């Protein structure tokens, strides 16, 4: 033990050190204060804040596009900020509750109703009509995803579509034909059973199953529901499905899992990335996923990986083009004009499109998407072709943004199915709980 030293030290030393430290620190802390305070950055120019979520690649490209915008709009400075998705949601919520969101903000589909409905977003209908934000190259039905109560509040930056990453070698071995856009949920169930029956061994010695278990994934359920003519929500306020619908879906998944045709419960709950997904770990031959993360699968799992369509019910496709993210303008902005211009620039400027590429999924602007698509290779090209093929096959129009409360319902969905997986609730019981919880969240 070091000996306690209680003796007094000469004060000048302590005092001087403290004073110096305090002075130095004061200067340093004030630096970001003066350099970066939000709002007007002195002089004539406008300072716009622009926040978004995403990884480093997206950061570098966004930064570059924004600098180009600044060059073309002298006097406008854009301050960007990015964070990882979960943090971003919380941060934006705190900002909305505590005094206003940034001038331009990247938004999730699930946030639109909440933010628009409580006045955190600026209505953009006017800017769209006077062509400050051009929408000529965008699909009208797709634009509707950024509306609340028939007013445009946000514009989709990119579109994503669900699909099915699968190992074509295993499919060949099991004698399953290549999945076509019209294959059905029962085809899918049979395929899974046949793969499990092959008795292939995964790296940890267990039998390889047909697919991951999508029972807790609200997106899979939505595809299933839509393929049968239903929808998650009835308008922007009510649930669109019943306890019976959900019970049927969960029973379907539950049974397949118990048969060993799809991944075991513990492998589903552990999955939170491509590497930890049942397919990534060699425990399943396929994984239901979005188009954007698909290249990660083919990188990880090799050349026999393919991107196929989501099953249908009797040929009716349940998937649709969903906005991967949207851009909105904060209601408290002091520069609505410049903010709208920045939105337009990021969506419609050809050079911005070239810089941003496919970092936010397929651009919503068709001309830009087609132009950038020519530069794509391998897996990216495969998903682009997939989207084209599905569009040709025929997809229903996307719904308007889901109601507020959707975020909580989505987590409840996952949680309740986890209770089914681990035998803590029957499908019927869990479905009833989910409907109750959802109706509570949707209560006006």
């Amino acid at each position, binding site marked *: 033990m*070091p000996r306690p030293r209680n003796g007094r030290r000469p*004060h000048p030393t302590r005092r001087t050190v403290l004073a110096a*430290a305090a002075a130095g620190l004061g200067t340093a*802390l004030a630096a970001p*204060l003066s350099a*970066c305070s939000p709002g007007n950055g002195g002089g004539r120019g406008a300072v716009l804040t622009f926040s978004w979520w995403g990884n*480093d690649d997206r950061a570098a490209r966004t*930064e570059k596009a924004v600098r180009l915008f600044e060059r073309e709009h002298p006097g406008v400075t854009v*301050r960007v900020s990015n964070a990882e998705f979960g943090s971003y949601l919380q941060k934006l919520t705190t900002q909305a509750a505590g*005094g206003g969101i940034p001038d331009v903000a990247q938004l999730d589909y699930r946030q639109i109703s909440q933010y628009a409905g409580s006045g955190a977003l600026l209505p953009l209908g006017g800017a769209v009509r006077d062509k400050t934000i051009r929408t000529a190259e965008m699909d009208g039905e797709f634009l509707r995803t950024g509306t609340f109560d028939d007013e445009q509040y946000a514009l989709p930056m990119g579109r994503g579509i669900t699909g099915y990453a699968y190992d074509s070698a295993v499919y060949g071995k099991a004698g399953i034909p290549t999945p076509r856009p019209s294959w059905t949920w029962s085809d899918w169930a049979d395929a899974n059973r046949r793969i499990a029956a092959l008795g292939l061994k995964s790296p940890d010695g267990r039998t390889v199953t047909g697919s991951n278990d999508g029972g807790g994934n609200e997106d899979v359920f939505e595809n299933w529901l839509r393929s049968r003519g239903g929808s998650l929500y009835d308008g922007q306020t009510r649930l669109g499905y019943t306890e019976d619908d959900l019970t049927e879906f969960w029973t379907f998944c539950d049974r397949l899992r118990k048969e060993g045709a799809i991944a075991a419960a513990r492998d589903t709950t552990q999955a939170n990335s491509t590497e930890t997904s049942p397919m990534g770990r060699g425990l399943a031959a396929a994984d239901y996923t979005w188009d954007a993360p698909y290249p990660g699968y083919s990188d990880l799992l090799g050349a026999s990986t393919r991107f196929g369509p989501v099953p249908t019910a009797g040929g009716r496709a349940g998937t649709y083009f969903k906005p991967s993210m949207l851009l909105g303008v904060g209601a408290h902005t002091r520069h609505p004009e410049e903010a709208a211009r920045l939105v337009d620039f990021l969506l419609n400027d050809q050079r911005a499109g070239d810089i941003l590429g496919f970092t936010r999924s397929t651009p919503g602007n068709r001309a830009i998407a087609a132009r950038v698509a020519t530069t794509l290779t391998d897996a990216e090209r495969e998903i682009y072709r997939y989207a084209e093929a599905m569009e040709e096959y025929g997809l229903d129009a996307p719904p308007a943004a889901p109601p507020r409360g959707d975020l909580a319902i989505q987590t409840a969905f996952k949680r309740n199915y986890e209770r089914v997986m681990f035998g803590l609730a029957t499908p019927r019981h869990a479905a009833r709980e989910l409907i109750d919880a959802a109706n509570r969240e949707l209560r006006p």
Partner: protein
Amino acid sequence: MTIAAKRWLPHTVAAAGLLVLLYPLAWLVATSLKPADEVVTSLDLWPGRFEWSNYTTALEGVSGVSVTRLLGNSMLIAVGAVIGNVVSCSLAAYAFARLRFRMRKAMFAFMIATLMLPHHVVLIPQYIVFNQLGMVDTYWPLVLPKFLATEAFFVFLVVQFMRGLPRELEESARIDGCGPFRTYWEIILPLSRPALITTAIFTFIWTWNDFFTQMIYLFAPENATITLALRSFVDQSSTSAFGPMFAMSVISVLPIVLFFFVFQRYLVQGMATSGLKG
């Protein structure tokens, strides 16, 4: 039990315990040196092939901000917080521990109660305060509260320590004509060094790791800290970022480890005496 066994048994147990305790840390360092495919597939602790490029990738930083800048920002906030907590907590603790005044009991009870309230519910009201003061996206919301003794834990810690100092100290100081201010500065403060050093070390570590507050209040990439950067590294969905992510993890905890090794003997001394001075 033989004498030899008696001598060696504690050492054997300690060494075995050490292996188990430090395994996760060894795992972290080892993984930070593995190539991407080994991170996922190999269970061996020792990397089959050393992938030093994980570190060069991590050192490039995040969002165009260099690692040195990120570390510097974290350091600035942590040092500011340390000074703030040491100064303000020792002032408040002195009053609570050594002075008599009206409302002392009520104020102290209130301070202890703040220890028990989950901080998430005061997050938004606090954010509104700092937003009104125009301090969002500066380091003030992270440092200013420390200068205002808002961390009850440390006030409590220092109070407990100061209460253990002998009364006679002040008696003799009074006879020498010292008022409360000189008594604080010349007698109590120097004697409280162990408790203050404990406060300093804990504040440094906690502030360094405090992802939540930094995430809420900082906006511009150039103001980001290493902890925030690590978090956005974790979000990288591609396989290739696994190694660099763990390399970044190692870089982010390195300053805490260094800080600890410099000050650890004071920490033990301070903690040991804080709650227990008899």
